[in-house]
């Protein structure tokens, strides 16, 4: 059996499409949570400004969660990404401040690219230990967690590196970090057109799957979401009073999610990741390059930790050596909450985004309610436990 034949098998199809129904259930649960928090906060939670804050606050974890899905689906884990975020963030900051790393200060685009390239290389380093040296991913990336947290400190002997370039900090979504009303509407129009085109072409390829009406309803709900997001972003005023529009970190998250979703569902690499997760032995026998695919999944996640480092440093306007501490756990929790199975083989990028949104909504809403950090931790931990247990019962399978 060729890899293509295997990946197109019904079993794999079912695994990839199963998250669809589950995502619907999660959306409804998120809606209920949002309404409850909104009532509890007297309408503050669902105010446009707070929704925009929520999206920006979830962006760094969301970016990494999309990549974590692929790593977990391939039956691996990466505990190092919080430290990789910290280390590459310190390097990016060190390269652009005046008294940072030797060779600096460099223009911010060069620092940014160097940082992401470094994160990519670190991801490949972990991937190589797992795929080629056959180390358990837990051990290889636990070592990475220690190594790169220490390395983050060594970049500047623990000193905070600031201030960062004013243009660079816009990427963080702060002052002048939004794209304005006009661009937001144009973007919404372009995304709507893209949705329409892809739905129509899907219907043309397989018209037997139902009438136009059958694709019209989901498409209309997607249009509605896109327009609602644009309207919400535009109803928040920037400091100068004009409509702010979408913040850049949210755009970055959207672009990353689309790209990783496409990679997972439309490419041979993505099909191979799911095939390996479903049954590594069978995948290998079917001729899939298991090692190469594993290496690439880790490399991708490393690169995304670099992107998250850019978002975090740009948002803070500084590089601090503690950045990203415990972020790996938030990211894994988001992926698992979003339906990614730690047994491998099942998961979706959309689900992980919802998971990240779930976690950040709890955090965000509970600070609005002035709940202490200790109680917040208890609540988020319990929600994670109950959600995953309920999901396992619902699916009748191990999480």
């Amino acid at each position, binding site marked *: 059996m060729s890899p293509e034949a295997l990946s197109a098998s019904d079993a794999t199809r079912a695994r990839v499409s199963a998250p669809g129904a589950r995502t619907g259930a999660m959306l409804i649960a998120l809606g209920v949570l949002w309404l409850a928090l909104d009532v509890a906060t007297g309408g503050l939670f669902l105010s446009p400004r707070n929704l925009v804050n929520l999206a920006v606050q979830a962006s760094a974890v969301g970016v990494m969660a999309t990549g974590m899905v692929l790593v977990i689906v391939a039956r691996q884990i990466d505990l190092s990404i919080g430290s990789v975020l910290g280390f590459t963030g310190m390097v990016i900051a060190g390269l652009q401040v005046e008294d940072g790393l030797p060779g600096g200060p460099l223009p911010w685009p060069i620092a940014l690219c160097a940082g992401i390239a470094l994160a990519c290389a670190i991801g490949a380093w972990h991937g190589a230990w797992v795929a080629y040296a056959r180390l358990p991913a837990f051990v290889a990336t636990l070592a990475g967690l220690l190594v790169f947290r220490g390395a983050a400190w060594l970049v500047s002997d623990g*000193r905070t590196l600031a201030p960062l370039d004013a243009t660079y900090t816009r990427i963080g979504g702060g002052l002048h970090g939004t794209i304005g009303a006009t661009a937001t509407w144009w973007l919404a129009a372009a995304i709507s057109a893209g949705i329409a085109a892809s739905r129509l072409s899907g219907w043309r390829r397989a018209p037997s799957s139902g009438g136009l009406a059958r694709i019209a309803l989901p498409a209309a709900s997607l249009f509605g979401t896109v327009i609602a997001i644009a309207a919400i972003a535009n109803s928040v005023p920037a400091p100068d009073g004009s409509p702010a529009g979408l913040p850049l970190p949210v755009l970055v998250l959207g672009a990353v999610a689309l790209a990783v979703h496409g990679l997972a569902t439309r490419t041979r690499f993505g099909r191979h990741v799911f095939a390996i997760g479903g049954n590594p032995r069978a995948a290998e026998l079917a001729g899939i390059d298991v090692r190469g695919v594993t290496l690439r999944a880790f490399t991708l996640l490393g690169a995304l930790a670099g992107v998250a480092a850019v978002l975090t440093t740009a948002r803070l306007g500084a590089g601090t050596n503690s950045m990203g501490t415990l972020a790996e756990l938030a990211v894994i929790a988001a992926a698992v909450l979003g339906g990614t199975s730690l047994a491998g083989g099942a998961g979706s990028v959309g689900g992980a985004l919802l998971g990240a949104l779930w976690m950040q909504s709890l955090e965000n809403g509970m600070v609005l309610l*002035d709940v202490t950090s200790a109680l917040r*931790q208890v609540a988020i931990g319990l929600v994670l436990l109950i959600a995953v247990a309920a999901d396992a019962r619902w699916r009748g399978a191990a999480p």
Partner: protein
Amino acid sequence: MLACAVPHRSAQLFLLALASLPGLTLRALAAAMLVSSALPAAAETEHPVVVGVSWSHFQEERWKIDEASLVAALGVRGARYLSADAQSSAEKQLADLENLVTRGADVLVVVAHDPDALRPALASARAAGIPVVAYDRLIESPDVFYLSFDNRRVGQIQAEQILAVRPGGRFAFIKGSPQDPNTEFVYAGQLDVLRPAIDAGRVQVVGDQYVDGWLPEVAQRVTEQILTRNGGRVDAFVCSNDGMAGGVAAALASGGRSGVPVSGQDGDQAALNRIALGRQTVSVWKDSRALGRAAAEVSVALAGGVRPEQIAGAQTFTTPGGVRVPALLLEPVAITRENLDRVIEAGWASRGAVCRGVAAGPEAPPACRPKP
């Protein structure tokens, strides 16, 4: 710096290396040679006081600043300086303390890596009548002199400086990690100053949150939520350190807010720059050179037979474990835009780093105006 009679530093180092080896015979031999070699030097200089300092982890940059001022202050008093670096190992520090005594230390100054692991060495020092000074890190033992900065005073200064620019209004507290005892000391100090204003209704507390691990990015998110909760109407952030103050300042800046007072501590370079730029009100600075000088004074006095309670400024400090120890708690310094020169002249931060991005002109803080 080691004024022993063994002529070459390398030979001394060799003996020291031998002395720290596990083999008992060799160790005793090497230690004996070191002691005997130190004797003639002591005779020549009328028994100078020998101060043995055990560092916990000398590789950290800050301890070099402490050491320089300690050594200079000892030099002025004609005392001798011995040192050992425990390299973050409790076992090594235990051996270091024994070695320092063997090498003739009359008084020990200890930056404890793990205070509880040092009990055997402290007991034998007590038996030998050698006074011990706990430097910067508390050792909960009634006969160890505690020398540090007053962390409660840090919180008081933060609140005083905030009140000086904003005498009342809607205040939010951004506190440190709930696991860190310093968090509570600092918060208690802040309340010492703000409590009367809160009780009189002049200050309303509109937010009060711990930040796990003192993480700046968490402080940033918490600040955004406190601002949202109050519709942006927060008049001051009483923030416990400079790292978190960076997160608070970033959250304020992204909302386009300026002029909201923010406090901090540590004298971080980035925070000093924010003070120059007007984005932070105060950083409470604990000048480690002052701590080094005080250590020289206290240790020489104790070695000379002065009783702990007779030392100028000494008080009784009750530790979290309920032990009453003699202590000297130094007053930290408030660094604001008016006295940024103080950290620059101390060599703590360069003028370039402090004044980066500050527009020259009459609006600039005094430290960043061109000198005539």
